[in-house]
């Protein structure tokens, strides 16, 4: 019973029922209108026949009087497929013709126009005929009529056709509904089953694409694309939590071990050293948390808070000046191209931090693989249409193209840089800061090296 209810509630059933109803109504209207037109045609033809009979009989009447008329009627009455003729006196007495009897009140009534009347034929069968009566001089009535069973037969045929067509339509509808619904139900069932499997946690599942390019294929394609994205997000989330676990647990356990050792140590100096190291670990943790909080705050913030007129060129020159000695110690040369003024609306502190992060990254990770090549860092500020570009380029190993999006995520560090100190949050912070200023961070190939560009839209004056 549940199955029956299910079938009735399917879209396929509902659609089939609607199609069937619409087709039936159309077929009905079509057949009825044909019937109506045919009837009219028949009636016209019969009226015309009756009219021509009258005119023929009128000639006989004019030429031979009553006798001529009777002869003409008798002659016509016996032809096969003959019309109905009746010559009667005013009392209804039959003078000539092939009609047995006719009601006198009918003779009086149906004088002018042709009318349809029922009558009993020679074979005793009830029939219908169209008749017209003309009153002749001398109190005689002349009736000419035409049997209409032909028309009735046609009506019978169309009725039959209607029934056959109806049955056929219903049958075809049922058959097509059966196949369509079975097909549709199967595909929907397969989609439901797959989604249930995916909901149960198996994100690798994909919907079947039949290759028919129908709406189900399009639906399956969209859902598969969505699943692809979800899977990537979940992978990213898992990676982030793995990284958080790693980046926070490592200094925590190191700190714990150090404090443990300090507690057990009999040597006062060694104990102090262990504690100092533990404090360093704690500082690293705090730094990581601060960076995380800053990113979260920036991501939730808006640029209008504490936005000022900032001269990007001067800001970049200041930051380069701050980092120049560090770069120098690392053997790297910093070249800055930031002449004049580049006005920008933003937060100097946050933008400085973003540029500082990029330079810091370039110093730490932008070392060329070949030790003979000296590291070189190029920092520039320039306008590109309505955008202001702050770019930091190094000549190091760069970031593989497929990793460039990923490194902007939180805690993502390239395998090659896992050993260098850092929170893995630097680029995420820069990306968040760029976004806060309605811009974005673009990572491209400096050939060789990494070219990190903060692209910020500036209001056109």
């Amino acid at each position: 019973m549940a199955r029956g209810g299910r079938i009735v509630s399917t879209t396929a059933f509902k659609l089939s029922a609607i199609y069937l109803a619409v087709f039936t109504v159309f077929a009905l209207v079509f057949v009825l209108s044909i019937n109506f037109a045919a009837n009219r045609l028949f009636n016209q033809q019969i009226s015309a026949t009756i009219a021509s009979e009258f005119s023929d009989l009128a000639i006989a009447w004019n030429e031979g009087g009553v006798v001529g008329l009777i002869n003409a009627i008798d002659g016509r009455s016996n032809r096969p497929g003959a019309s109905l003729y009746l010559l009667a006196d005013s009392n209804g007495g039959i003078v000539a013709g092939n009609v047995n009897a006719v009601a006198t009140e009918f003779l009086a009534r149906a004088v002018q126009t042709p009318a349809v009347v029922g009558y009993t034929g020679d074979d005793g069968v009830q029939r219908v005929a169209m008749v017209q009566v003309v009153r002749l001089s001398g109190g005689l009535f002349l009736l000419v009529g035409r049997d209409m069973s032909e028309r009735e037969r046609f009506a019978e045929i169309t009725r039959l056709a209607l029934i056959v067509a109806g049955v056929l339509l219903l049958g075809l509808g049922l058959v097509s509904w059966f196949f369509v619904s079975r097909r549709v139900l199967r595909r929907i069932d397969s989609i439901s089953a797959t989604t249930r499997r995916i909901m149960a946690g198996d994100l690798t599942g994909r919907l079947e694409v039949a290759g028919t390019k129908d709406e189900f294929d399009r639906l399956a394609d969209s859902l598969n694309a969505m699943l692809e994205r979800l899977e990537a997000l979940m992978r990213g989330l898992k990676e982030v939590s793995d990284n958080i676990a790693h980046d926070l647990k490592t200094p925590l356990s190191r700190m714990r071990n150090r404090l443990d050792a300090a507690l057990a140590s009999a040597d006062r100096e060694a104990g102090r050293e262990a504690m100092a190291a533990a404090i360093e670990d704690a500082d690293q943790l705090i730094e990581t948390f601060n960076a995380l909080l800053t990113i979260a705050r920036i991501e939730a913030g808006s640029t209008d808070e504490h936005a000022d007129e900032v001269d990007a060129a001067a800001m970049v020159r200041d930051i380069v000046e701050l980092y120049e000695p560090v770069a120098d110690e690392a053997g790297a040369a910093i070249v800055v191209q930031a002449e004049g003024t580049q006005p920008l609306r933003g937060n100097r502190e946050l933008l400085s931090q973003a540029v500082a992060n990029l330079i810091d990254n370039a110093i730490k990770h932008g070392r060329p693989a070949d030790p003979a090549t000296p590291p070189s860092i190029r920092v520039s500020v320039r306008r590109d249409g309505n955008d202001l570009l702050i770019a930091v380029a190094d000549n190091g190993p760069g970031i593989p193209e497929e990793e460039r999006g990923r490194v902007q995520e939180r805690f993502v560090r390239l395998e090659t840089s896992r050993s260098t100190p850092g929170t893995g949050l630097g680029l995420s912070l820069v990306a968040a800061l760029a976004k806060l200023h309605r811009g974005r961070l673009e990572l491209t190939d400096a050939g060789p090296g990494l070219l990190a560009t903060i692209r910020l839209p500036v209001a056109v004056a």
Partner: protein
Amino acid sequence: MRILLIEDDRETAAYLTKALREAGHVPDHAGDGLTGTDMALAGEYDVLVVDRMLPQRDGLAVVAELRKAGAEVPVLILSALGRVDDRVTGLRAGGDDYLAKPFAFSELLARIEVLARRRRPGESETAYKVGDLELDRLSHSVTRAGKAIPLQPREFRLLEYLMRNAEKVVTRTMLLEHVWDYHFDPQTNVIDVHVSRLRAKIDKGFSPPLLHTVRGAGYMVRGPRR
């Protein structure tokens, strides 16, 4: 010096009170904003350390109330928030310095001592002298043992800040804030490199060294011990 600590977290307060006492100061403690305001107005304190989030009366309101009452005591605001705009609102309310939690005690101590110094006369000094090192703020010149030492503008400001706070520990964060006007953590030892460059200019070839590294805290310019 006398320090009033307005902090509602018992453990933090106990730890800070003890550490300040060990550093040779005389700390008092208030557990809420109202008591803190009363104590600050009644007592003679050199520095106030005010937590931003307090029961009864918010830390910023305490500072605003004190300033309204005409108290000029330097105030250091502590906050767990540490956002860029929080620092701005904190200083606008009348605070003199702002320190985000968590912090190293050495950082707090250094800032308290520098804050207290601001109260003493000599703020408008035009020249500083530590040992045989002299800095003239008007002519922007530095000499050591009478010999002129050419400095870059930033190096000059760095030395100026260190000498103004001579005999006091100055942390890396304080230098970054006052010499460069940055409040973020640069992650790398940028300040150390700047300081060692400055040291190479003012200490190299002279004796005794005047610019010292204070381990685990920061730097200090200190004259020769008598």
